């Protein structure tokens, strides 16, 4: 690792697959970072990467990989910043090879680029494997399996860092583990130092969604204000050797870091706060303390750690068929009753003319959509958008949804407008557990 000082400075370059690029560039340019992490893989994005890889000329890695590497490799090289990312998605080796080609084009052939392999456990997921939820076997799902990936931990990455990697590209690694790896490599924390692994995991958890700790996903005008949200900065973690961390951001960027933003992110996607399970450790977040130091700096300490589990979580992806979604709008007086009538027409037509059998959903956007099932929202809107959604293995059944929704324009209630419809491939993901020792990981350096 470069810049071997008492404080390790880690930045977040992306918090999800489609995250912005300019805040990452600004961070490497001005953040004096030892490492920058691009966390770009959700359950959904990985499943789609498996699908894409099966297509002719398809890639199994993040669609923004080339653009990000073109912009970031020269910056990271100039500032001695190590880049770690799960942008490899379903094919980390191909992503690393592609990255090395970009490095060569940028006259950066000296960069050591490594891929972490072994998260793809598709071969271990036999039809009799039990899923956690729903509680059934893989075979009982009754759909073709697309792929399965185990959540790897920090120690799948640390061997690459100790061997001098400048860029590490992985597939499925638990999000906080991407951040924990450079801490372990830098401070020499062992794989059984549960207390330090918990400290690092809290830091990684706070950092993994990028702007979500610096004022993104936060503003509520009149209640929670965020300065210059359009220029919200990505976070920096300053890690001390004792495992405490300060979360901050560049002063030139928009956003805010204070107790409120850090609190919200601390328990984001956490269930039992005393048992946050990662491949590395079971971390207790329940007694974490936040010290707001002002100037967009919050110190975080007080996590507790205990021994990791003997199993690794695996995401198993299945072919979900086709998702059809179509919308038509109604505006002005009577908008709601015309949209409701249109919905009834759609149901009747799909049932009786097309014999459509798959589960279907009708929404009245503007009156009852996101929480339509709560059924207690009284609408007075004069701008209602009817939406029909359906998922099916049969492409013709999907096409019929779009056809009938578009036909409302002439055959439906008065004033139907603004039809849009699309069919997208769908994947379903479920979880299973695998014994840790069945998942073997390796690091491969790319030779140009």
């Amino acid at each position: 690792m470069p810049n071997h000082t008492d404080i390790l400075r880690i930045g977040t370059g992306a918090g999800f697959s489609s995250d912005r690029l300019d805040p990452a560039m600004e961070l490497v340019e001005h953040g004096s970072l030892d490492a920058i992490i691009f966390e770009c893989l959700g359950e959904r994005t990985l499943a789609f990467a498996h699908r894409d890889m099966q297509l002719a000329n398809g890639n199994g890695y993040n669609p923004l990989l080339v653009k990000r590497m073109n912009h970031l490799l020269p910056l990271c090289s100039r500032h001695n910043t190590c880049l770690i990312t799960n942008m490899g998605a379903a094919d980390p080796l191909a992503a690393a090879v592609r990255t090395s080609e970009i490095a060569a084009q940028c006259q950066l052939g000296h960069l050591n680029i490594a891929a972490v392999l072994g998260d793809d456990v598709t071969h271990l997921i036999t039809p009799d494997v039990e899923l956690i939820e729903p509680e059934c076997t893989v075979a009982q799902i009754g759909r073709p399996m697309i792929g399965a990936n185990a959540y790897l931990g920090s120690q799948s990455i640390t061997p690459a860092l100790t061997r001098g990697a400048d860029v590490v590209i992985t597939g499925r690694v638990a999000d906080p583990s991407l951040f924990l790896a450079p801490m372990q490599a830098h401070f020499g924390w062992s794989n059984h130092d549960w207390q330090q692994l918990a400290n690092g995991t809290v830091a990684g958890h706070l950092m993994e969604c990028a702007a979500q700790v610096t004022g993104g996903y936060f503003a509520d005008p009149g209640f929670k204000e965020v300065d210059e949200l359009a220029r919200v900065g990505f976070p920096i973690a300053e890690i001390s050797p004792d495992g405490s961390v300060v979360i901050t951001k560049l002063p030139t960027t928009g956003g805010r870091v204070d107790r409120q933003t850090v609190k919200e992110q601390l328990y984001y996607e956490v269930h039992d706060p005393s048992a946050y399970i990662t491949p590395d450790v079971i971390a207790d977040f329940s007694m974490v303390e936040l010290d707001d130091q002002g100037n967009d700096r919050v110190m975080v300490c007080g996590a507790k750690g205990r021994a990791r589990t003997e199993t690794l979580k695996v995401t198993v992806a299945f072919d979900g068929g086709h998702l059809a979604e179509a919308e038509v709008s109604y505006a002005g007086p009577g908008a709601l009753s015309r949209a409701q009538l249109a919905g009834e027409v759609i149901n009747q037509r799909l049932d009786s003319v097309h014999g459509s059998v798959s589960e279907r959903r009708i929404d009245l956007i503007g009156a009852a959509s996101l929480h339509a099932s709560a059924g207690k929202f009284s609408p007075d809107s004069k701008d209602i958008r009817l939406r029909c959604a359906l998922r099916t293995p049969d492409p013709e059944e999907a096409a019929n949804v779009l056809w009938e929704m578009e036909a409302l324009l002439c055959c439906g209630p008065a004033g139907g407008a603004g039809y849009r419809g699309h069919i997208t491939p769908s994947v379903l993901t479920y979880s299973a557990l695998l014994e840790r020792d069945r998942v073997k990981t390796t690091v491969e350096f790319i030779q140009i």
Partner: protein
Amino acid sequence: MKGRTSLRHIAHARAGDKGNRSNVGVFVYEPKHYSILIRQITPERLKSEFGNLVRGAVRCYPLPKVHGLNVVMDRALEGGVNESLNLDGHGKSWSFLILDLEVEINTDNLETKE
């Protein structure tokens, strides 16, 4: 004097998802409102308010160090992001559904910001 106000006036919240389970971290702005949060936002109340949305168990974990409550709702996402036909498959809007709940409060000292 006792009065009623929406939770949004005394607290902020963020929703997250994992599979078909939703969690909403709710945090009061003022420590003095912490007891209102943990006494009035209970699993029983959430089940009765949102019974049609939450098909599984609800658990509430008090977070005394940050004056918050972690609300965890099983089977609350109509199957989760990959399976739900809901536009909001992640359940990101759950936070504001909970902030819209009314709580009973002493109106003499209703302050909303930290």
